[in-house]
């Protein structure tokens, strides 16, 4: 096995390069780029989010995709999209069989009440899709700065 710095890497996504270039793609463009003409299956994705967010600056998201996570059949990417955010492509998680389980969590910024979209791609070429609504309320003592 090569040393850590030159170790085998998981497949790259074009997100990083595009995002660094400063262009914010629309939700439709982002979703189309991920879907690539496939018909997504519903089911197989569990999204855990609070129905009401304490503060849109930080909303917990926990995602689990049903998968045996074997070399032959595993989740290779989980995409999170926020249709009403300035940057709809929020994050992509790259996994492989060494994950053991396709389960990730993070905290996202939610600009306004909307349905968060999760797309999961498997190594067999399958595409799964799920949505979850989150309501954003306005806090009281805000500095505005």
């Amino acid at each position: 096995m090569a040393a850590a710095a030159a170790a085998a890497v998981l497949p790259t996504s074009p997100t990083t390069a595009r995002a660094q270039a400063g262009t914010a793609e629309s939700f439709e463009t982002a979703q189309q780029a991920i879907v690539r003409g496939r018909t997504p299956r519903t089911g197989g994705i569990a999204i855990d989010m609070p129905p009401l967010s304490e503060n849109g600056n930080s909303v917990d998201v926990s995602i689990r995709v049903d998968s045996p996570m074997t070399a032959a059949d595993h989740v290779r990417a989980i995409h999170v999209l926020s249709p009403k955010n300035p940057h709809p492509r929020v994050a992509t998680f790259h996994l492989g069989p060494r994950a053991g389980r396709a389960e990730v969590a993070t905290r996202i910024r939610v600009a306004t009440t909307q349905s968060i979209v999760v797309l999961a791609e498997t190594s067999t070429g399958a595409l799964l899709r799920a949505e979850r609504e989150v309501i954003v309320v306005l806090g009281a003592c805000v500095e505005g700065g």
Partner: protein
Amino acid sequence: MEPAAARITVPQAARRGEIVEVRVLVRHPMERAIDAPGLTPRPRRIVHTIRATYAGEEVFRMDLSPGIAANPYVAFRTLAVESGDLVIEWIEDGGAVHRQAARLTVS
């Protein structure tokens, strides 16, 4: 400028083949770009990549956007294959790379 630092949480010990949870908290403001009339322009400055290397392979990678909350938090799973360092690497806009390791003890 904030110090480059992270908190990595792994179980104290694991059995070979066990699926363990890794939690990472990275100190970073995740500054969105500001480019609006009346406001001082400011470029985007975020962590755009967090990756984990363990037992010779990259076992996890996350592409982050300005839509990830400040002081990014991520949790993921990995198979406990052998005792060794789980190295978390995070990369900022501008190319700075930071690394921090946590020891996984596997029996």
